[in-house]
């Protein structure tokens, strides 16, 4: 017999702990990083200077996406004009040769910039897993304070080092309060 939705046992998403100041959450993040966790996050109402280092985040890959998008834009823009002027519709304009490449520079440049902007924005959204309509933290009673005065660390169950009891204890040891188990 198939289970109804209410009968499905909720899966544990992870553990959430609250910290009282940016300083506390910063040092707690360093300890979580040193334990070797990978699937976890810090939530704060404002950017904390240097938190990326404290979390052990690497170099963002958005730059590479932007680079390839820029090259696609430049080659695409130049190629389009070259193909039109040389093959599709050769027209002599202003007595210039059929391949007046200085004239192609502005239009080579513009798609380069446009594609770079797209690459940056869409690449950033894709790497962040955005947009999304649901996240397990939405169920938390405390979590709404992340946009006001709350500083949180969440460690996901997907992390290979995750162990419900040990992780809860870790968060307690490093100064976390209001420890909650989040269900998906």
């Amino acid at each position, binding site marked *: 017999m198939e289970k109804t939705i209410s009968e499905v046992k909720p899966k544990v998403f992870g553990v959430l702990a609250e910290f009282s100041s940016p300083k506390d959450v910063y040092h707690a993040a360093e300890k979580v990083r040193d334990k070797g966790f990978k699937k976890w996050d810090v939530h704060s109402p404002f950017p904390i200077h240097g938190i*990326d280092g404290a979390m052990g985040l690497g170099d963002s890959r958005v730059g590479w996406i932007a*680079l390839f998008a820029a090259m696609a834009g430049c080659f695409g823009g130049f190629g389009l004009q070259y193909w039109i002027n040389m093959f599709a519709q050769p027209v002599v304009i202003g007595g210039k040769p059929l391949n007046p490449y*200085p*004239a192609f520079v502005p239009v080579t440049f513009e798609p380069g910039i446009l594609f770079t902007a797209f690459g940056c924005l869409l690449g950033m959204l894709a790497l962040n897993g955005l947009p999304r309509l649901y996240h397990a933290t939405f169920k938390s009673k405390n979590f709404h304070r992340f946009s006001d005065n709350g500083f949180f660390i969440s460690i996901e169950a997907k992390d290979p080092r995750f162990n419900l009891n040990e992780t809860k204890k870790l968060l307690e040891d490093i100064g976390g309060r209001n420890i909650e188990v989040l269900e998906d």
Partner: protein
Amino acid sequence: MPQDNYRLNAKLGGGPVFLGVGVVGAAICAFSFMQNRQEFFASYLTAFSFFLAIALGSFFFVFVQHLARSAWSVTIRRVSETAAANLPWMLLLFIPVILGAKDILPWLNPEMRANDHLVHLKEGYLNPTFLWIRVGLIFGVWTLFSLYFLRTSRKQDETGNPALTTSMGKVAAGAAILFTLSQTVFALDWIMSLDPHWFSTMFGVYYFAGAVVAQYCFLILVSAILRNKTGRKDIFRTDHFHDAGKLLFGHNVFWTYIGFSQFFLIWYANIPEETMFFQHRAASSWKVISLMLPWCHFAIPFLYLMSWHVKRNIVALSIGCVWLLTMCYIDIYWLIQPNFHHEGAHFGLGDVGSILAVGGFFLFLFIRRLNQANLIPSGDPRLADCLSYDNGVITNEHD
């Protein structure tokens, strides 16, 4: 309050060597002068304009830092202040150009001004009386401002008075306006008017853009040497090099933008008085240099300096700076020399001698001045911000 921990007494060596290089260069110049007067003056003007570009760019850097109230650049600002303070000495090095003015500026010949229609129309600007007034004015402006910034900043080393920073910020606003005008006047009078028929409204900016690129290269190289020499990685920090590298990258793109815009509009409009500038540079070996500039001055450094790994690696960044500094010289060579050698590029003894002479004296005077006082503006109220400055890159470096 003067901070003793930031009094750097390490002296930069090499002064006497550069003085010797200058003297040897001057001897080669004298030999070249006797062989071909005009060729020598053209070579000398090239070398002079190149080193003047470094001094002018440094002046620009100093007042922009004051205008922007920037903290990041405090420790490296002394290098630029000192290089800018070479501007009064540049007047001394300008004497050979003054003596050779009749050989290199064709419009100083009254016959040309009377008979050549275009030059006749420009006579309101291109006449000897006004030329020498302009020379006096621009060198006067440069001397006053560059010495003011160096002296005030040095005084602050002693007193630590924050009011001096405020007054330097105010003077910087005036310096910005007068600098822009005076460097444009130099570029027009001594580089553009070598070909008095030519029209371009972007020439002043073009020389400026190149000068700022040369300045950043010079600043980064000297700061790298100072970092090595003093061993103070906490003062000449990787973050500072990274940011100077970013500005170098940005200004190099700006140079490209100006250079291309100047070429593009002239090429497209195809008006004879404008296109002949590029006509001289589109044939023979000048064509090689004309094509070299977009590739070696822009494309290669653009790709090379793009990654922050290069900008944070002092050796890699310095290699890029040596490369770009060479390109800045070639750029100025390409502006000046085709007016004298239509048949093709001709890098001769006069060019070597002029680089050695002007460069040797320039660096000798620079090092001498730099060694006279503290290597960094230790009394600057923004020094603490500069030393703790973090440009937000996550690395495993610890300096």
